């Protein structure tokens, strides 16, 4: 039982092909190859660091926690949105190069960094805070069942992996996108919240939930395992029923 942790594995060379763009010199993004010596248990983020630290310091990406909780490093890895810090090299097909590019649908600023502001704006637009008219002096009560009702959508780390995997968002940047709806869900189904109608009105808009085509890309992309499509469906039902 004990040696589960450290099976001795050898390092090997992997090729990363990264879509790079430096706005100060390039007119177009370009693909650049890098060979790095890695272990299977290393993360893609480790490979990016190795390139930045040993080969090319100008390679630019966001990152902080390195274990999938801060939401900084969503990127497209082999055509799928994932967090670089939560993707182990051994879980990719290492006989092939690993393709890394920025998430799609948001303006590229430099290399793997995109302008997240449109994404944050959609989040802010759904009023992402508890709306309650009471002024309690103590804790409000909430049953474990009521608490469980919105548990899944409290896990969101605003990484944008879902929204930028959505074909509707790619063609229509005005669409609120799955992440904003997930965060609306978190409040609509919170028994303490009184803002459901307001949020439902917002999401009943032509750029709201009805644009969702249920392609499930978002659910597959979510690194927190949130059932995004289900959350969107529940918000749709709430709209049809008039409220939560």
């Amino acid at each position, binding site marked *: 039982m004990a040696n*589960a942790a450290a099976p001795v594995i050898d390092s090997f060379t992997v090729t990363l092909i990264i879509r790079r763009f*430096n706005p100060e010199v390039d007119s177009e993004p370009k693909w650049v190859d890098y060979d790095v010596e890695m272990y299977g248990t290393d993360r893609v983020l480790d490979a990016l660091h190795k390139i*930045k630290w040993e080969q090319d*310091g*100008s390679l630019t990406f*966001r990152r*902080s926690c390195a274990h999938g909780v801060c939401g900084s490093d969503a990127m497209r890895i082999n055509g799928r949105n994932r967090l670089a810090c939560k993707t182990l090299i051994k879980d990719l097909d290492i006989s092939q190069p690993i393709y890394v590019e920025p998430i799609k649908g948001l303006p590229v600023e430099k290399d793997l960094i995109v302008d997240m502001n449109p994404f944050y704006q959609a989040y802010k637009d759904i009023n992402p805070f*508890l709306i309650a008219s009471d002024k309690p002096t103590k*804790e409000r009560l909430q049953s474990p069942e009521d*608490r469980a009702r919105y548990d899944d959508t409290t896990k969101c780390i605003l990484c944008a992996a879902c929204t930028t995997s959505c074909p509707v968002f790619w063609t229509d940047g005005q669409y609120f996108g799955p992440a904003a709806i997930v965060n609306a869900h978190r409040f609509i189904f919170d028994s303490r919240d009184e803002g459901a109608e307001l949020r439902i009105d917002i999401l009943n808009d032509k750029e709201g939930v009805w644009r969702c085509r249920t392609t499930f890309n978002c659910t597959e992309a979510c690194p927190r395992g949130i059932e995004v499509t289900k959350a969107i469906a529940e918000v749709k039902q709430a709209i049809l029923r008039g409220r939560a």
Partner: protein
Amino acid sequence: MPQQETADSNITYHTFDVLIVGAGGAGMRAAIEAGADAKVGVISKLFPTRSHTGAAQGGMAAALANVEEDSWEWHTFDTVKGGDYLVDQDAAEILAKESVQAVIDLENMGLPFNRTPEGKIDQRRFGGHTRDHGKAPVRRSCYAADRTGHMILQTLYQNCVKLGIDFYNEFYVLDLVMNDGKPAGVVAYELATGDIHVFSSKSIVFATGGFGKIYKTTSNAHTLTGDGVAIAFRRGIPLEDMEFYQFHPTGLAGLGILLSEAARGEGGILRNASGERFMERYAPTIKDLAPRDMVARAMANEVREGRGAGPNKDYVLLDLTHLEPAVIDAKLPDITEFARTYLGVEPYTEPVPVFPTAHYAMGGIPTNIKAEVLSDNDTVIPGLYAAGECACVSVHGANRLGTNSLLDINVFGKRAGQYSVEYAKTAKQVPMPANAADDVIAMIEKVRKSKGKEKIAQLRKELQDSMDKNAQVFRTEETLQEAIEKIQELRGRYENIAIQDQGKRFNTDLLEAIELGFLLDLAEVTVVACRERRESRGAHLREDYPDRDDKKFMVHSMVYQQDKVQKKTGTNMKIGWKPVVVTNYQPMERKY
């Protein structure tokens, strides 16, 4: 609110009443408190919800007594004893008394705590928190599964959005501007453009978090480079209790990623290679729930004496296999997922390899109970505040109890907001010197144009390796001396660096170099303080001075930067000592 900006080449000027540096738990809690009444700005090098408060897992202590009898007085005692009596007891009392309101504030703001069957906030056990002065573990930690910090960070950000707080995200504060000993504002570098911003403000709150990246194996984010602490130090502010750095017992072996103490709070057991529950030998009463310093040391000792597990016998095992999978899924979902993702271990059926990981800075910028920064043992710097992990109040003394930091950031973050806004109401703005940004511009241009031979990543690696080897759980005069020499060597080589990215936009190559400068300063202060404290207390274990020495060392250390090399420390640092505030609890031997 309108803001006054005047463009002067590419320097932008801003003016605020209260300026908060850092948008983690402490910074945003301060912003919410200050927000309603004043012109408040928050500067953060990360988008707020990326701050490392979001990584906190286990919970936040408060004697709500929702599930069993508890009292703030017991909590105060545990905090003092847990800190090996180096805690300032007036501050600990405030921490414990104000904890209940701090939790209620968060609940009222919308935080989704786990609930009891009656619908109250649920509570669980955590290391060092006991009923009636050590009789048995008590359920004091309020939690939201094992993502309590995530929920705190989200809830605080949500409330900042609600209040319309003005954020400057991805702005790196690189200097504190002092005019004649008084704080006038800060200078920041904008990541997106490379532009410089000068912020004037009547009150300034530092809430820049910790600096775990001085070590290699750490639970801390890449961005936790102690910028605020180092900036204060460079501007003549002393740093308090820097020798006390906490190593959390259960980092994923080899990686340092944290598995919360909640795992043991929910019944998890530490075992050595032969399966023995070794904590029974070290802390017979509360065993696996002894404070972190004791557990980390016990683990390191098991490994050192050859009882470690694994092919290299270099870790111990955290056993959760006797817990119901349903309990694990409900209460510890994230950390068990970390074990699966990063080590390929299934915690339902296999024990998880763990080893101590550098986790938390007890020391930092000295403050009083109003979160005001001190320029020596007791002189307040009017208008300058600090809260959270970057500050040292000191409520954690020589060893912080689990769940007391999320509490600290809320209690003292709130206080910083309250007192800074109160001060700004009557204070006059300290004039901003005309050349305020010169030092920062010089520092940046020096790095941007550097053409030396040394690579930043290499220097950082050598620093972190040396700190892990020489200034980790066990320390001696020799290892510390070795670390000081290494740091001084690295400082010399730092003068000869080269970066590759010479651009202005999103130049993270440049910022990593500047962050390394901060790390070198803080590592040196840490090691100097470690060497001067010739006793063992809390997280600081000197193998050459294995006992606690209350006659000489019942005092906080205060390290000051000097212009010249000091004979006593062999560095340009001077060490002073500051009395501990003792109210009710006289030092006793620490047994659990």
